[in-house]
């Protein structure tokens, strides 16, 4: 099934895999165990072809998986579920929409999709939630859904990367029984699972134990135990480690609580929190003594995090009250924050800062003195063995190291109490052991109270007392051993399930029919382009868009508002130019000159500057654009034939406008001269100026055909760019790597919804222009519509192209703005006709699609031009669109690096 030889992989300076070789037979259930950051994910990525190979060879399903042709061919027989809760799901889509999306990616999907999805949902117990967005599912449900999605194509090889990390025990149990059912129904299926939890590793047929990018052992779990002479796989793993890495490991022992009456650290009475009608936490009360380790155990979404937030004052309680060290917790109280160290569930440090920078930043934020900051940072670096990572960016750290950093940050200000929200999920046994040693020491020696939530039963056993939580309520509370005894079970996990309300345990036995759907036609060469796969992407994108009505509203209504604002505001007609007069003469003649100016529609104001000042200083204020200056003796001079000079001082800060002002002054001057002569002009000829296409010379008629292309370009490009970069940031881009989707299908599938949205936008804008602004549309609307589609094709393509260059959404927004706003406004022919451009500007204008679409808009709106006249504008647009798409395809990576 899989043959890998000498696989090595490095990320920059970090060697992730070193000469790993392995073979996997058909039908095997293989576990890949080991702590985080030892190369498990890299190995799985290479085996499935999701990640690009660097050294070595991999033959998966009978061919070189790094060869695109082979990958394309076998990708339908392969399913891959990436690490992280619901990482292959689209958070905005509902459960059934997610399934529909995946079924669309594989052939044979469309025909019996609906009944199959219904059955699948029913079997895994998700049927009641099928209309719930994936983002709102609990961790366990997300993983079950993720598995269903991965199984949509009935694979021969199923690869799961830490599927149950961060999932509560009951859901974990359900998940594994699901896998068992599937294997029973299809014994020839090979399953490879990576896990950081040794508890889970025991159930695999064969186990590969990894550390430091190498395979430590490869055997059945019992064989491993026998070989190392240990009783538990956690211990076996540690036994397998080279001596150097075991430093500091020792079995944990929790001493008795030293002082029975040390006082109460936390007290909570009847804490309740509602979000709307949903009760997240219901009537929770407890009392924790100083120096105690109190564990909070429960499935995801049971209210642990909410309770912790109420204790720290992050969230006000709807009912009830909490006290820390005898003082009531008030929302937003700063004193509480100084006494408490908090470590949240998700990794929440700054990924772009280094380890040292993260630590010292937080030390400083807690207002420690500078010397203390440095000393404490050093201390924490040493205590948490982070010294060698000091200058690495947090983003590049393996999960286990990151958790250590998070804890270090939480303890930087030596708090009296630590509130830790699942601090060890996904951390390897050695680190976890070290972590707990630290906690025990803090609690027993320094009297720090520790309030911790966890998924690990063996960690819960270490707490002084624990509280089992489910659906917002506390099920049971007490010492771990006492709880087990009371339930009459062997382990805490069984005890937990025992305390759970009966209805919570959904029936999960019949997973077998999951795969009973018709077998997919195999061996057929997959088509290089499939409409169904493309449409699957389009559909999910569209559904995501519809789920976010705010975005939709902004995209549609926003352009309309912009057009109204710009249509009214962007007026290039020069009228009512404010001017002032400096009159050294005060004669009837100078007054007449001024009245002549005021009599036209071009000028307004004309206030006298008193006392006469310097023209420049008047203009400097910017209140007037023109100052007329009459010299002393102006009036007398006019009639005496002295040819006096009138000064026109024009503010040329806006050169274009200054030119118009100058022209108008000259025209009005000529008029004045004629009125002086008292005769009609004795012209040599008559100049008859015809303003074509816009006889009334309404600004709006000329603006609208230029504004529409600009708005369409920007909105469409930004949305398209974000749609891809969002997938990159949120992780669902993995579906593209792991499924048979080709680059063209992905690109066109992403483009289609935005083409549609852009087109609706276009129609609305035209309706607004014609209906509201009364801009005549003299040409053919269908022709305009077809051109608009072509233009939108270019715009969305441009957005996708930007998305291939950027990895963060900020960069994508800003980059797309730069790539659309500037060229569209400057080279689109909005204010400056393309015909009068030269050199590089002209080239840009001719390549960039906006100028062509502006030409078409103007041609159709004002000139009634037909296809025969417009094709010279259509062809370059089409070429641009296709070229951009090809460029995208070339830039888009099919595998992770």
């Amino acid at each position: 099934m899989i043959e890998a030889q000498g696989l090595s992989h490095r990320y920059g300076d970090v060697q992730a895999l070193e000469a790993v070789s392995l073979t996997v037979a058909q039908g095997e259930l293989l576990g890949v165990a080991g702590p985080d950051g030892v190369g498990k994910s890299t190995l799985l990525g290479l085996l499935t072809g999701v990640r690009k190979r660097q050294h070595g060879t991999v033959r998966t399903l009978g061919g070189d998986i790094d060869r695109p042709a082979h990958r394309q061919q076998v990708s339908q027989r392969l399913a891959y579920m990436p690490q992280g809760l619901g990482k292959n799901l689209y958070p905005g889509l509902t459960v059934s929409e997610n399934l529909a999306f995946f079924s669309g990616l594989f052939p044979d999907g469309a025909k019996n999709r609906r009944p199959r999805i219904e059955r699948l949902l029913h079997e895994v117990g998700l049927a009641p939630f099928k209309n719930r967005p994936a983002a709102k599912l609990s961790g366990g449900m997300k993983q079950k859904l993720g598995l269903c999605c991965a199984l949509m194509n009935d694979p021969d090889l199923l690869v799961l990367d830490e599927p149950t990390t961060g999932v509560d025990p009951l859901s974990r149990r359900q998940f594994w029984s699901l896998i068992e059912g599937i294997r029973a129904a299809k014994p020839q299926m090979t399953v490879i699972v990576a896990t950081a939890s040794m508890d889970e590793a025991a159930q695999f047929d064969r186990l590969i134990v990894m550390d430091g990018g190498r395979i430590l052992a490869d055997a059945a779990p019992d064989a491993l135990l026998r070989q190392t002479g240990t009783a538990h796989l956690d211990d076996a793993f540690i036994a397998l480690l080279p001596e150097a890495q075991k430093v500091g490991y020792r079995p944990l022992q929790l001493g008795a609580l030293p002082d029975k009456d040390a006082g109460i650290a936390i007290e909570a009475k009847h804490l309740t929190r509602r979000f709307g009608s949903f009760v997240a936490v219901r009537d929770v009360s407890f009392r924790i003594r100083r120096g105690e380790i109190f564990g909070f155990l429960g499935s995801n979404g049971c209210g642990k995090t909410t309770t912790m937030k109420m204790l720290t004052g992050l969230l006000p309680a709807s009912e009830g009250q909490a006290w820390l060290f005898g003082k009531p917790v008030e929302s937003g109280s700063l004193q509480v924050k100084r006494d408490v160290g908090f470590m949240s569930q998700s990794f929440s440090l700054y990924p772009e800062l280094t380890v040292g920078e993260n630590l010292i930043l937080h030390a400083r934020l807690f207002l420690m003195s500078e010397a203390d900051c440095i000393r404490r940072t050093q201390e924490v670096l040493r205590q948490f063995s982070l010294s060698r990572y000091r200058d690495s960016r947090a983003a590049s750290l393996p999960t286990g190291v990151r958790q250590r950093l998070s804890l270090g940050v939480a303890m930087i200000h030596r708090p009296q109490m630590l509130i830790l929200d699942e601090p060890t999920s996904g951390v390897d046994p050695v680190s976890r052991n070290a972590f707990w040693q630290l906690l025990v020491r803090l609690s027993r020696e320094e009297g720090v109270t520790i309030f911790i939530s966890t998924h690990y039963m063996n960690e819960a056993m270490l707490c002084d007392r624990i509280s089992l939580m489910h659906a917002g309520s506390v099920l049971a509370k007490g010492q771990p051993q006492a709880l087990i005894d009371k339930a009459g079970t062997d382990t805490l996990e069984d005890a937990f399930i025992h305390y759970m309300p009966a209805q919570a345990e959904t029936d999960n036995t019949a997973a077998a029919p999951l795969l009973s759907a018709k077998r997919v036609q195999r061996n057929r060469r997959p088509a290089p382009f499939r409409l169904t796969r493309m449409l699957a992407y389009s559909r999910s994108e569209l559904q995501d868009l519809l789920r976010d009505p705010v975005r939709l509203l902004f995209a549609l209504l926003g352009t309309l508002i912009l057009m109204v604002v710009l249509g009214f505001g962007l007026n290039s007609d020069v009228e009512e130019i404010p001017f002032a007069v400096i009159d050294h003469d005060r004669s009837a003649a100078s007054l007449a000159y001024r009245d002549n100016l005021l009599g036209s529609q071009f000028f307004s104001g004309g206030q006298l500057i008193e006392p006469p000042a310097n023209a420049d200083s008047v203009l400097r204020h910017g209140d007037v654009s023109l100052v007329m200056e009459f010299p002393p003796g102006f009036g007398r001079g006019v009639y005496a034939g002295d040819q006096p000079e009138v000064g026109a001082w024009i503010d040329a800060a806006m050169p274009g406008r200054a030119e118009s002002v100058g022209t108008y002054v000259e025209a009005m001057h000529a008029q004045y001269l004629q009125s002086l002569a008292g005769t009609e002009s004795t012209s040599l000829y008559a100049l008859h100026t015809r303003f074509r296409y816009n006889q009334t010379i309404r600004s709006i008629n000329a603006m609208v055909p230029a504004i529409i292309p600009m708005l369409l370009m920007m909105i469409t490009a930004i949305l398209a760019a974000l749609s891809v970069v969002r997938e990159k940031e949120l992780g669902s881009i993995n579906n593209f790597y792991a499924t048979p989707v080709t680059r063209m299908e992905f690109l066109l599938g992403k483009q289609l919804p935005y083409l549609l949205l852009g087109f609706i936008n276009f129609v609305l804008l035209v309706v607004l222009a014609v209906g509201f602004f009364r801009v005549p549309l003299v040409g053919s609307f269908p022709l305009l519509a077809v051109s608009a589609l072509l233009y939108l094709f270019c715009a969305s393509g441009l957005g996708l192209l930007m998305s291939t260059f950027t990895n963060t959404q900020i960069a994508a927004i800003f980059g797309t703005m730069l790539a659309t706003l500037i060229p569209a406004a400057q080279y689109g022919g909005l204010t400056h006709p393309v015909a009068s451009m030269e050199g590089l500007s002209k080239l840009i204008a001719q390549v960039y699609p906006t100028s062509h679409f502006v030409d078409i808009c103007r041609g159709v709106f004002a000139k009634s031009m037909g296809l025969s006249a417009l094709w010279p504008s259509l062809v370059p647009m089409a070429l641009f669109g296709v070229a951009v798409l090809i460029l995208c395809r070339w830039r888009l990576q099919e595998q992770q690096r």
Partner: protein
Amino acid sequence: MKRRGFFRPVWHLGIKEMRSLFRDPMLFGFMIFAFTVGVYSAGKGSSIDVRDAAVAVVDQDQSPLSQRVISAIHPPEFKDPVVISQDELIPVMDKGDFTFVLVFPPGFQRDVLAGRVPELQLNVDATQMSQSFTGSAHLAALISRAVTIHTQRRLVDSALPVNLVTRMRFNQTLNSEWFGSVMELVNVLTMLSVILTGASMIREREHGTLGHLLVMPLTPLQLLLARLWSMGLVVLVAGMLSLRLVISGGLAMPVAGSYGLFMLATALHLFATTSMGVLLATVARNMPQLGLMAMLVIMPMTLLSGGTTPYETMPQLVQWLMNLAPTTHFVAVAQAVLYRGAGLDVVAGHLLALSLIGLGFCLISLSRFRRSLAAA
């Protein structure tokens, strides 16, 4: 001690923001691009005055007079005219090849000399608004001069009772590069400060680090101020460098007023725009929403600020609304200080307005930010 305790975290959080910014190479690259190539090309490419307008002539007269008129039309205002036939008139105008087509009737020179006042036809493509309007006035003046000189009849000049002396102030050569580049600088300053601040807030929320900051002894005001000063400073420094190196260096624009005064105005403007960025981030729920919203706010704010078209030609309502936008005041200050050399006395009103607008946005965003944190 208390004061120090308030400002130290603000300082360090700000440093953190800057570090994050500089470590996103793509974003940083875009920023450099906008302040250099963007500003420069805007200067080079944007001229709303008449330059290189395309003119065609239909010469049915073929006389020395018509030749004289045609030869008077030349760069830089106009491209050298292209001679076309009467039949081509409509098609070339439809295609938009020429903005102006001048038609000489047969016997034009003869009729002029005979005093029969022949009709000269000037066809203008009115879809090219700004150019067609000023351009036609220009052409009319050119033609008039050419005809007058040719006929050797100084009709009015000799007898002129009054001479008009026009002086263009503050930009004697009407160099539009200077205008375009400064306005682009204003646009980039505005766009970047709004987006950088807004996006850094949203990112903090999307990555869950906001909740983390909240468990520390920090107030929302500190979180807000840290963002304002850091992003504001980055954009301010980049903007001033761009003014010095690109505009007064590369495009050789003389700066009439004081750099210090302009920098003060820029700082106040950035105070207002970064506050707007925070405000947008408290309204938007995710990055796409922020992107769209920023666009909707930034576009009218920059296009209607008076930097693209004159402020006083806008409808009264728009003028009134735009008084609330920082860009309007900033554009006014930029023009006054950079071109006209105005001092503090002239721009004090605008600076006050900028401060008030900034303070207003800052307070609104602070209260919204507080509320959104309480609800988180």
